[in-house]
């Protein structure tokens, strides 16, 4: 696992070094995207990976697993993220949301058969996600310049760091057993598969309606992250532009 991370970080580092010499335009500065040229190239690279490797696997997944089964897999994977969500809830001082996370985990892991069913939602225990990137944001760490990471997609230095930190924060990663690595790899593989299956139609819609797909992704990512950091609470008036 360390090897894979080193490879990913190495590619990111090389990509950023390569673009350090690219001239910056006023738009790049205004958009807080000084590595735009490299980011656009990385998006093309990610598009090829998606087209030739991810989408064919997703297609096979759609053929082999019916909708109900895919929904159960989604719930099961979501349930596995709850320990990390709980740690981040606590780090953000969100006690109420933390207790909801614990309640969801206990209910869905037991009467929800390990998370394949979602009785917690029926019991009106709301669902939410948290990650270390959001925790850093609530601690006042700014996002930094926009980054398009190879394989991982839209990000920024704060969220990229959070991505790695969440692996370290997941308490289940400290339970060691014989097949731990295979379990971890399988979980990540199915998470990517599930995420792409869930977002297939949405991404297709964005690609179809976009004037500039790269800029659209950048804007959507930033707005979605801001909304997640605010825990879905309404944006402050001054955060919205004047018309």
């Amino acid at each position, binding site marked *: 696992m360390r090897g894979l991370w080193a490879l990913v970080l190495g590619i990111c580092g090389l990509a950023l070094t390569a673009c350090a010499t690219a001239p910056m335009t006023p738009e790049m500065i205004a958009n807080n995207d000084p590595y735009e040229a490299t980011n656009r190239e990385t998006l093309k690279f990610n598009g090829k990976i998606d087209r030739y490797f991810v989408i064919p696997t997703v297609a096979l997944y759609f053929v082999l697993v019916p909708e109900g089964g895919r929904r159960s897999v989604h719930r099961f994977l979501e349930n596995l993220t709850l320990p990390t969500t709980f740690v981040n809830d606590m780090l953000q001082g969100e006690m109420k949301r933390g207790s909801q996370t614990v309640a969801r985990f206990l209910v869905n892991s037991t009467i929800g058969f390990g998370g394949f069913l979602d009785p917690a939602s029926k019991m009106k225990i709301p669902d939410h996600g948290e990650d270390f990137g959001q925790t850093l944001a609530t601690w006042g760490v700014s996002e930094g310049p926009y980054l398009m990471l190879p394989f991982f997609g839209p990000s920024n230095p704060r969220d990229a760091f959070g991505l790695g930190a969440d692996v370290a924060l997941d308490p289940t990663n400290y339970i060691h057993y014989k097949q731990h690595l295979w379990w971890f790899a399988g979980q990540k593989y199915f998470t990517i598969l599930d995420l792409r299956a869930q977002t297939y139609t949405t991404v297709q819609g964005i690609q179809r309606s976009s*004037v500039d797909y790269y800029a659209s992704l950048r804007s959507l990512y930033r707005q979605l992250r801001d909304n997640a950091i605010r825990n879905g609470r309404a944006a402050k*008036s001054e955060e919205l532009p004047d018309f």
Partner: protein
Amino acid sequence: MRFQPILRRTFLATLLSLSAALFAEPAFAASQAEDFVQQNIHKGLELLNNKQLSTDQRRTQFEGFLLGLTDMKRIADFTLGQYRRTASPQDLAAFEAAFQNYAVAVYQSYFAKYAGQSLKVTGSQQRSGDDFIVATQLIDPSDKSGQQPLEVDFRVRTDGGKPVVVDFSVAGIWLALEERDQFTAFLGQNNGNINTLIAHLSDLAKQFRSN
């Protein structure tokens, strides 16, 4: 007798404030913005749900509804960002027309996804005297999962005499803001040429209408 000028002044001041209260246009209240959104979006969803209309009839009626509900010129100008300042009046007019054509095609496709659902206003926020954000939830009657409903916010401006929607957000994503980010990036990549953007928008609108 010394009291007379004071009394006269007090009388005049009272008269002035009374006439101001009587003749001034009543301030648009947040609850009115909420009613405006509730009634109009309900109307729009009903239009999309109306099975008696042909596809063409639905498209035409929805276009009329959308143009009455929103201020397209204002949204179009906003989406040009800094390029609006340097655009010629001819380019600006052509862009506004192209944007309207594109937006109607795209918005109709967005709203069509929510046909069959109903809208519930959950509150509102007043940014200034004529700027409101109305929070709503889209309720899907067929959804038995217990998941939280989709949150949709509408930004309503009333400074033009009547209320109009200038932007809406789905799950925290403001559409006009996203369009501005796209268009300015596109113009940045194309030497600020608005005509290239107009041509691109027209192509996209055609694609949407042909599907």
